């Protein structure tokens, strides 16, 4: 019996997606649905002094205009413990509960109307006047008062400071030094599916069709908002049109849609506009990092000093693992890493693909390239010289680490040896050509998950878990795991997800769905098969997958069973306390820079990843290629254009916030190093969703330096920065 795990299986949800039949949140059409449109605050801080809804209410078709003046006080019961997706400090925005304005773009009213056109028109007619406060909207000013995250003082909180030895003294004594600051603007997820929610109340039961990466938590949060039992809320989300972290939390518009439905007693669809998304669903926080690297004459690191300041909101403290990469990616006898937060009148940032890690790695890998130059070493050679044989941060051995193989295979496949040895030394017509590389890393997480498996009378199986699939291929990979455990062909197994009535699954983020839900699916199917074997002597079950379905069907018939079920919770073991678990990778980039016009093209990107077992090389490759495309955007085009005076993002559209288009992408390839990891989880997987973004932007920027001799230390690398004008 050959397993389907490890095979490049076509996506099982492919036919639905290419046929337009996959249903995303706003594709559900409950009868009698009416439409909501949000009114947002025009100021960054203050109080709503008056709200005139007369003109809006006069619009034909308008059913209600909901705002703090007429909304009921909702329970907003505190969640204890807080879900992992919510900041540990501060209070989430409570929609329409008071007159406070905390950031520009905050929802201050919601119009509900029979038709969307009427709701949108009326929303534009709601008049607010404000008592304006002094907003903190200048990042550099806010940075002056940055402070370590409150959560860093508590066990399990993200660190605000990491120390090993006396890094400052070691840096001062180092013979080779780099001291540079790197700026990263706010970056936005920009999934193509707009965030949207359809809410419907049936007596005291709430149903939400929502764009979410975690139906269970969405259910629990809404239950707390409305003060009702969890069981009274059902969240349905079978397909998520991309999210990359923006749908981890339950944002205020979800509660707004539910509140509106409660008040108008109709199902309400609320889809944010593209512009509203830029101030409603989080973003990667703007971060400035100063990195000092000290090394000896041979290029061995003697000191790493990494200081990061990131923005957060005035009402919540969103913290990331920015200083983890400098603490563990390379071997260094001394380390001082500090991470501080600058509160501003902005909506709270949130995780965006590889949160924190991509940020910290960006600065570290740019600085390593500068150190290579300072040491007159090949950048790859410098990384090998400082290879970390164990996690010096956690002081633990690696569960597995194949970064050396990633470097070697990548260098070979990319042709790293042909890298121009001196910057700005290779020219092809009016193009300057350069190569760059960077390391990639992302922790391998795992959380408890439960799956339900069922053999049906016809011998096919149905497996469920309240997981999510925002694109990596959860449907497909879980089907593969289940099919292998049950000995069934792929098409005899149906895996379903995205409904809070299903057995609980953890958040679909942090690259841990395969590790967590996959382990649960494996365990449930294993238990189910054991149940079947209890009923039947193993010798009477065939080895052939085609025959297994008939054998199961006969078995159930013989025992007069409609079905046979098993439900299993899979828990992480204690290995995470004994081993440090990370996926690693190496990214190589070739760039071409127009010597006169500064235009930058990336003809080649190669990512080589060691991420444990790869369940489906086809979908995993797509995920990695997609991550590298995201990294290309991060390197060259993406940035929130912030206006300090108004405290808002001005380029809040897909025409002005530039994500890569097809023409930006040329050759991109992803390779996987075979890696067996007995410790991470039963499946031996580490996840690839996040690591695929890590290292891409620094590899490209390092290649730009190799091509032009110019160090770009603020993202994105636009043509005026390359031209130096």
């Amino acid at each position, binding site marked *: 019996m050959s397993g389907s795990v490890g095979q490049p299986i076509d996506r099982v949800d492919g036919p639905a997606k290419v046929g337009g039949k996959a249903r995303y949140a706003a594709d559900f059409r409950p009868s009698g649905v009416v439409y909501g449109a949000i009114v947002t605050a025009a100021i960054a801080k203050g109080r709503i002094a008056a709200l005139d809804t007369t003109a809006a209410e006069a619009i034909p078709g308008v059913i209600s205009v909901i705002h703090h003046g007429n909304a009921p006080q909702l329970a907003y019961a505190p969640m204890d413990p807080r879900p992992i997706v919510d900041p540990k400090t501060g209070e989430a925005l409570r929609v329409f509960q008071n007159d406070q304005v905390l950031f520009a773009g905050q929802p201050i009213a919601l119009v509900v109307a029979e038709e969307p056109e009427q709701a949108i028109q009326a929303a534009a007619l709601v008049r607010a006047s404000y008592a304006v406060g002094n907003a903190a909207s200048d990042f550099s000013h806010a940075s002056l008062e940055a402070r370590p995250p409150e959560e860093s003082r508590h066990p399990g909180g993200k660190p605000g400071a990491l120390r090993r030895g006396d890094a400052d003294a070691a840096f001062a004594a180092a013979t080779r030094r780099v001291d540079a600051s790197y700026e990263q603007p706010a970056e936005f997820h920009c999934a193509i599916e707009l965030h949207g929610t359809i809410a419907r109340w049936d007596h005291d039961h709430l149903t939400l069709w929502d764009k979410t990466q975690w139906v269970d938590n969405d259910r629990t949060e809404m239950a707390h908002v409305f003060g009702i039992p969890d069981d009274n809320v059902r969240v349905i989300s079978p397909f998520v049109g991309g999210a990359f972290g923006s749908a981890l939390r339950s944002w205020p518009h979800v509660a707004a849609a539910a509140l509106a439905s409660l008040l108008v007693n109709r199902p309400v669809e609320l889809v944010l506009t593209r512009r509203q998304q830029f101030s409603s669903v989080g973003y990667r926080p703007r971060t400035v990092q100063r990195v000092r690297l000290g090394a000896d004459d041979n290029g061995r690191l003697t000191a790493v000093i990494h200081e990061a300041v990131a923005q957060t909101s005035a009402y919540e403290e969103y913290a990331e693992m920015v200083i983890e990469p400098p603490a563990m990616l390379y071997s260094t006898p001394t380390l001082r890493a500090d991470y501080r937060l600058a509160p501003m009148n902005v909506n709270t940032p949130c995780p965006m693909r590889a949160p924190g890690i991509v940020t910290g790695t960006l600065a570290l890998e740019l600085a390593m390239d500068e150190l290579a130059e300072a040491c007159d070493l090949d950048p790859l050679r410098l990384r090998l010289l400082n290879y970390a044989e164990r996690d010096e941060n956690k002081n633990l051995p690696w569960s597995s680490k194949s970064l050396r193989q990633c470097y070697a295979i990548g260098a070979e496949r990319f042709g790293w040896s042909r890298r121009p040895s001196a910057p700005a030394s290779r020219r092809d017509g009016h193009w300057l050509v350069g190569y760059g590389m960077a390391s990639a890393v992302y922790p391998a997480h795992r959380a408890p998950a439960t799956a339900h498996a069922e053999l049906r009378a016809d011998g096919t199986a149905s497996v469920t878990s309240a997981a999510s699939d925002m694109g990596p291929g959860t449907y497909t990979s879980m089907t593969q795991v289940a099919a292998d455990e049950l000995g069934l062909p792929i098409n005899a197994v149906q895996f379903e997800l995205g409904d809070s009535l299903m057995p609980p699954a953890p958040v679909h983020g942090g690259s841990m769905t395969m590790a967590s839900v996959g382990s649960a699916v494996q365990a449930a199917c294993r238990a189910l098969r054991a149940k079947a074997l209890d009923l039947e002597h193993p010798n009477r079950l065939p080895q052939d997958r085609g025959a297994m379905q008939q054998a199961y069907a006969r078995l159930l018939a013989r025992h007069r069973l409609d079905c046979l079920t098993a439900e299993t919770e899979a828990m992480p073991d204690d290995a995470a306390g004994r081993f440090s678990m990370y996926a690693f990778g190496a990214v190589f980039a070739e760039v071409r820079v127009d010597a006169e016009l500064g235009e930058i093209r990336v003809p080649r990107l190669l990512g080589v990843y060691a991420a444990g077992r790869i369940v489906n090389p086809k979908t995993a490759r797509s995920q990695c290629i997609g991550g590298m495309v995201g990294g290309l955007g991060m390197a060259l085009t993406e940035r929130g254009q912030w206006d300090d005076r108004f405290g808002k993002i*001005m380029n809040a559209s897909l025409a002005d916030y530039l994500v890569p288009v097809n023409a930006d992408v040329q050759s991109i390839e992803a390779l996987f190093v075979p890696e067996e990891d007995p410790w991470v989880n039963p499946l031996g997987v580490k996840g690839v969703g996040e690591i695929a973004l890590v290292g891409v932007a620094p590899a490209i920027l390092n290649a730009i330096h190799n091509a032009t001799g110019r160090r770009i230390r603020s993202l994105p690398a636009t043509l005026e920065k390359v*031209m130096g004008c």
Partner: protein
Amino acid sequence: MLPFTYSRPRNIGEAATAGAQPGTEFIAGGTDLLPLLKEGVRRANRLVDINDLPLGGIRHEAAGVRLGALTRMSDAADDERLRRDYPAVVEALLAGASPQLRNLATVGGNLLQHTRCLYFHDAAMPCNKRQPGSGCPAWDGQNRGNAILGGSRACIATHASDLAVALVALEARVVLGARHGEREVPLADFHRLPGDTPQIETVLEPGEVITAIFVPAAPYSRRSTYVKLRDRASFEWALTSAAAALDLAGDTIRQARVAVGGVATKPWRLPKVEEALAGARADRSIFHAAAELAAQGAEPRQFNAFKVELMKRAIVRALADAGSLA
């Protein structure tokens, strides 16, 4: 979006009468207008759909080519003779918008498209072009996309059309139709500088429509090209662009036409650059020297100062490309 009535007149007279009423917008492709209506940047209570007017078709004549205003961008870009005789026009068409937008958008509408200034598009922001007298936040704000040429304290919004830049270089004229006949205006005079009235963007009178664009056949037309620079490789408005056309006698430039986009408040012809090129040798040092003149009078702001240099280099590249055309 406000509610509107919808009419679809069959002749220019009817259209002009309907269009002259306050609160009326003509709609053809709708690719520029509808997003503005949706975001509350423009308001209309009547839409006059002009797609039934007999304004389509491309007519090649000895004196030049006449593009009916309702010609879709994609159809114009597909026209073999246009590509052969006026390559800069087709290159600009293909560099503008996406294929699906080009199937909707008309060449006439393209000349009338609105600026991409970030403040103009955010209806909650002050903007003199959208709301006269409210101020220009771009002046001291996020102005990387804004103009260094032709601006005023009231407005530094860049004109967004690629096509218009190529056309103004080739000395195109626009034909304007009204109730009582037509008039012709050089494209260079069609758009107005913002001055104190940035909300008035063209010389169109109420009810007047563009009926056609006429591009004269000139000795330089075939040797014309359009260079567009942007952050993305495609599907983005120009950060800076240049159209160049050369009439060469051996190595000598008989006459040249040069215009730039993405840097000015209207499609920006550069007569001084053209004069410097006329009679000179077609080589890079001459191109560089001539391009220097483009920046005369440039008034860069904080985030768009690089355009001064970038514009010159784009001109040089366009001239070099045009010079190497067969």
